[in-house]
Every structure is written in C-alpha cells, then in structure tokens.
C-alpha cells in the first residue's frame, strides 16, 4: 500500500503544492470566521484527494495499476491510507497556518474566533468531517468512477445538508437547541462524557465509518471494468 502512496506522491506532489498555495491565499480571507476557516481547511483536504483522482482519471492510469501484480482491495486500501496521510498532513497545515496567522497581531485583531488555540473538539470535528466526506465519496467513486461518482456525491451531500438544516431548524423551534450541529454542541457532548470517553467515542466513530466505507469500496471496485 505504501508503494501505491509513493506512486501518488511522485505523480501528484506539484499539484498538491499548487493546492496549498491556493489554500494559503483563501485561508487569510476566511480567518475572520472560525467555521469558514475550518470549511476552507476541509476543502483543502478534499481538494488534495480530488486532485489525485483527477490526475489518475485524466491519464486513465487505473488500467495500468490494475494490470500490475496488485489486488484491487490493495488499491482501494491504499487510497484510504493516502487520504489518511493527506488528512493528517492537511490538518497540520491548516492548524499550523492558523496558529501562524494568529501570531500576527494585525490578523488576530480581525478574528471573531472564540477558539484562539487548538481544542480537542475542534480537532475532532475537523477530522470527523473530513473522514466522513472522504468515506462518503470513495464508495461512489469506486463504483461509478470520478465523473458520475462526484456528481452523486454532490447530490447526496446537498440532500444531507438540506436535511440537517431542516432537522436543526425543527429541533430549535421545538426544544431551543440551536447548537445541535455546531462545534459548541460537540463541546457539550465532551463535557457530558468527559475527555477520555469522548476521545474514545470519536475515534471509534471515525474508525467505524472508515471500516464500513472501505468494505463497500472494495466490493464495488472489485466489479469495475476498465
């Protein structure tokens, strides 16, 4: 699997670097809003993953790598592993960059951000969101390919977003729980469970999502023709 990740690194490193440059520019703009900054950060991670897939799709290298002495399941797992690396790397970039921006007094003055330092809930929220989106996208990608997969992913994501907003609005009007899907709600759950249990729960949730997504992707990819 690491050999496949290395192959992606060789093939995509300059595209990733370009994405980082774009991110650094947009990161400054979004620094005033914590949620916006996080969303741009997640977009960076998705962008890094998407670039890898776009390049592969453009040159149809799946045919080459499916012809090599590799199992399809290995190819799928390596994609998740690479995404894990990119989330880790992207996460470090995002939070490191924010830390750097906050160290500049002029930028700090602009921010309305209540979390001036990295918090556990913020980190978990970031990783969980990125993992969820990647794990939702990959089965569609491995089943339908990049174009159709990305289209279905967008449709499903929009559906989920509309449903979530609807449910939040409904619950807010009934129970006055407007924070249900925000970082504050994650903090509330953390306070309720205590940090160790909360961390354990979050890791377990992430692993379950990843595990289920990998199983589904392997099953789909095993049936694909190139």
């Amino acid at each position: 699997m690491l050999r496949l990740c290395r192959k992606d690194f060789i093939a995509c490193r300059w595209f990733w670097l370009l994405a980082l440059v774009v991110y650094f520019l947009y990161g400054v703009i979004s620094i005033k809003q914590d949620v916006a900054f996080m969303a741009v950060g997640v977009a960076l991670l998705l962008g890094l993953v998407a670039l890898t897939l776009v390049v592969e799709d453009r040159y149809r290298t799946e045919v080459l790598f499916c012809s090599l002495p590799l199992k399809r399941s290995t190819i799928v797992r390596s994609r998740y592993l690479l995404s894990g690396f990119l989330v880790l790397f992207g996460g470090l970039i995002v939070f490191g960059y924010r830390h750097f921006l906050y160290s500049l007094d002029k930028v700090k003055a602009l921010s309305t951000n209540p979390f001036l330092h990295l918090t556990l809930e913020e980190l978990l929220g970031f990783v969980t969101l990125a993992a969820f989106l990647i794990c939702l996208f990959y089965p569609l990608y491995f089943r339908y390919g990049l174009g159709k997969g990305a289209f279905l992913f967008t449709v499903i994501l929009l559906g989920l977003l509309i449903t979530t907003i609807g449910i939040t609005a409904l619950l807010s009007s009934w129970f006055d729980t407007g924070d249900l899907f925000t970082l504050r709600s994650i903090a509330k759950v953390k306070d309720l469970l205590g940090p160790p249990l909360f961390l354990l729960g979050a890791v377990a949730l992430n692993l379950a999502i990843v595990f289920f997504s990998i199983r589904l992707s392997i099953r789909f990819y095993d049936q694909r023709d190139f």
Partner: protein
Amino acid sequence: MENVLEIKDLRKDYEGFTLRDVSFSLPRGFIMGLIGPNGAGKTTIIKLILNVVKKSAGEIKVFGADSLENEVVVKSRIGFVHDTPFFYEYLSLKQLKATVAPFYKNWDDDLFHRLIREFDLPLKKAFSKLSRGMKMKFALALALSHRADFIILDEPTSGLDPVFGRELLGRLSEFIQDERKSVLFSTHITSDLERIADFITFIDQGRIVFSSAKDEILEQWGVVKGPNELLSEDNKDFFRGFRKREFGFEALCSSVSEARRRFGQRVVIEKPSLEDIMFYMTRRGKDA
C-alpha cells in the same frame, strides 16, 4: 507440453457485445498471435487475462494457476504492453519507472537501463514528448525489465513505422530463445505474425474461429481460384469464405487435400497468407 495460458469457456457480457465460448491454450516457450478485425474482442481477452475487466463466466489459468485466486503471484510473472500506454504523461521516464518498478520483486534495474540505452530512450524526457514508437519501446522496456515469463502485447505495432515493428518482433523472438518464456501478441497486422508466431488464434465477433499451430494452418488451408460455374451451393458450403468475380472466384478452404479431391485440375490452389484467412473468414457465407 506445459501450458502457460489456458482459457476455457470464457465469457464476457457487454451491452451490445458478448465474448463467448472462448477456449484456447498457449504452450510454454511459444508465441501466439491473436488476430481478428477491429472490435472482435482481442483487447477484451487480454484485459480479462490481466483482470482489468471482470469475466462473466469461464476459467483463465496462467502458469497452471487460476488467474484470480493467485492474481498477485501470476501477474508478477507477466509483462504487458497495452494498445494505449496508460501512464502519467507529464512525468519523465525515470519517474514513471519509479512508479512501476517497486511492484515487481524481480525488477532488474540493470536490465532496464540496458534496454533504455538499446532503445535509445531519453530517461529525463517527459513521456508526452515521445513519439508513439518511443512510447511503445518504453512500455516494452518496463514489460521486460522484471524478467517476466509471459509477455502480453495488445496491438504493439499498430500505427508504428515498419523499422520499429521489425525491431519489436526481433526482441520478441530473442525473448523466447530460452524456451521457457511465452508471448501472446494481439494484432490486426498479420504480416507481423507470419514472421514470428508459432500459434494463431483467430477471433471474430466475440467467438474463437480457430486456434492452431501457424504452420499447420498455412499448410492445410488454401486459396482456391477457379471458374464461377464451380460455385455450386454445396461447394460454397465447403469454402470458409469466397469472393465471386466476373472471370472466376477466389475462395478459402481449410483442407487443401479435400479441395484437390473435389476440383482436381480445374482450379489453382495457392498458399494463403494470414491476411487472406482473416479476410475470407470475416466474410464467411458472403460473396465478398
């Protein structure tokens, strides 16, 4: 004789095309040519062997082992050249080698560099900047550099100049010299195969028409030329394909001895080329 490749009752269903009842085998140490018109199913068979497309039914054994159950072991002994090279085209040849070589335990870097020198390929140049001939040479260098026992090539000479075509065929002949290695070579340029193939498998419209030793085919089959009055319905059925002209007919038969018995001195029988066979067989039953 030990078979390097055995295909039995292979089937692949596509919308509008079905590859069916495909069965043939290739003994170790020989070159097999897979011929047929465009769209006959040659590339599909090769992709099925490499598990790039999934079979609907049937069995593929490579080196005596099921190609799916032992996919990694089997493929590590296969070298392949696809009809279109699927590489990251903006990478240099050196970088491309670095993306492929780690997947082969038997990768021989010295051999790779030797082939690169012999093929006169610029390692630092981007793949996209190469001519089609050079691209195919690079794909061949990759296919040969892990000391594969079985090479599969899909239309490698298509669109290439005859000089490179000859060079490639020479390489393949060298490759099987130790009598342990084998080649499956799909093409519609039949003159390539007349030079080097030991076996010919002919496929048309998703079905195997025949799979035999080349010399056997060229000795037993013949192109019959004679007057049109000999073209009775019975004789038409005897021929594998025919072409009727104003001053006589030309037809392909699969038994020269039977043709001589039937027609005696009233016809001329010539040795067919593979192109003749492909031409008549793809137009069987029609007045070509």
